[in-house]
């Protein structure tokens, strides 16, 4: 570890990448934590404020990007875990949101 209280990476599977709707969800969720939260669209950065939708959108991360998160602060671990989980759930935009549960969760080809 390198001076951060929590770090993690996750593959962005959303069909059109980190575009408008996913960015709104991500930054809204990030703002619910007190920790300083940053994300990068590559292992070398640049690191950007995960609470700023202007900066998150400007990263223009396409599908397949490995998103890295890092955080410092009291709730850093919970914050990183929550953001990773949101990306893993494909921003809650799968079949389950529009139809009754029971259908398999599919990855868009």
């Amino acid at each position, binding site marked *: 570890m390198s001076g951060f209280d929590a770090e993690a990476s996750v593959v962005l599977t959303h*069909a*059109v990448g980190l575009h*408008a*709707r996913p960015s709104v969800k991500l930054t809204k969720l990030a703002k619910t934590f007190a920790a300083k939260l940053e994300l990068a669209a590559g292992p070398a950065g640049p690191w950007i*404020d995960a609470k700023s939708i*202007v900066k998150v959108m400007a990263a223009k991360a396409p599908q397949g990007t490995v998103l890295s998160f890092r955080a410092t602060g009291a709730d850093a671990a919970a914050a990183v875990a929550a953001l990773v989980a949101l990306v893993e759930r494909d921003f809650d935009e799968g079949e389950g949101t*529009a139809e009754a549960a029971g259908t398999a969760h599919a990855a868009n080809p």
Partner: protein
Amino acid sequence: MPPIRELSGRAAAPGLAHGPVHRLVETGTAHRAFAGVAVERAALGQAIAAAIEDLAGLMAANEEDGADILEFQVAMLEDESLSEPAFDAIEAGADALTAFREALDSQIADYQRSEDDYFRARASDLEDLRDRVLSHLADGAAAAVPAGAILVGRDLTPSRFLSVDWSAGGAIALAEGSPSSHVAMLARSRGVPMAVGLGAIPDGPFRAAILDGERGRLVLDPTEAELAAFGAARADAAGRAAREADVLTRPAVTADGVAVKVMINVAEPAELDRLDPEICDGIGLVRTEFLFTGRDGLPDEETQYRAYRRILEWAEDRPVTIRTVDAGGDKPVPGLTLDGESNPFLGVRGVRLSLARPEIFRLQLRALCRAAVHGDLKIMLPMVTVPEEIATVAAMLEATVIQLGSDGFRARKPPLGIMVEVPAVAVVPELYAEAAFFSIGSNDLTQYTTASARDIAAVAALNDPGHAAVVALIRNTVARGAELGIEVSLCGDMGGDPAHWPALLRAGLRSASVAPPLVGRVKLALAGLRAGG
């Protein structure tokens, strides 16, 4: 010489209106005088807050459509990173309007340079944001739109249209603009009279105006005599509306008892909220461009699926024909259509574009096959020119349904039909027998047959759907369809014009799809015509 009071342009949405003139602020040329750093800082802060408030109001009024796009705009405005460069510029002596415009323009340029279609399309969101804030900063911009006003300006954005309360009437008069624009479709579906292409509108001041959306005419500061004529025309229109209302929910039948199917064309799912499905025999054309020209860029599969499903649920068990995206020609879509074609109407448009961009087309086919389990959905291909295009899409459709099944989705393969709008198809429809149905697109069929565009005023008179050649092609399509057992309908503007129905009935046509406000007019006209003989 007295100032010009009468302007003629093109009809964009029917109806007659008389009301106070309201000038639209042109944010592109708006300016503001610097009044000191503190004043400019406060003004920008207030303009951003006011823009957020506008958006909150819009979100409340448009829950179904575009609420998440508006939410995105709010999130951007609330983010201090957006306006930081503007506040820095104010410190350096810029006025708030120039500072914000330049800050946003540089971010817009950044999105426009993106290699990714979805992100490139975001530029239009930032333009909308910019204009919304600028409209609060421009000198003399504050005036609210009075009830029933005639909005006069160069052009109008869809979001500005949606922000106006049209319940007290009103109309739109634009110096530029197009009847096929998104905002013109909105105006037609909301019943707001609109004229476009009026040319330079004199500065005025004018107190009031009459707008005739049928003829595309604007009369500024009308005289007593003009007002009297307007009153009489409006009374006529009201009388006709009452007779149309009588036949609206009844099946269409000619005077000699021949049934004609009358379906509706849908450009926006929101149009359906105000419509009773009982007025029609189904939806003969859903234009899916609304999904692609929205501020959210190219739509993902889920967004499309939800939109299609909502339309099918409205229609209950009635057939719904959804046309795959018909971009290109006069309907450019950022991130999808090609720029700089020398003649876009003869270029990569309709199914040609879909086949050139299979990754985008496949998402639409997936969404359509998933939605198809919720009703009587049919897929229609625009601009088909050779039978191979149908075969290629049919194979893609087959593969899509199999893939959806293995992805765990419920899906169904809908019937695949075509638009008959390229003369090549109308001349030899029998070569296209693989199509499940034919729908005659009379607008393009007329344009390609007469080699004249509707939107070029100098040749508009040649663009006549009643031309014997166009009618002959329609008759041929209907006759070959009947021989092959292929259903034939018509979904262009010709079907909404009672003057063309005697010829259409003689050509054997028994089904058409028209703009929703024209259903009553068509049914009433059919009741007075004889199909046989």
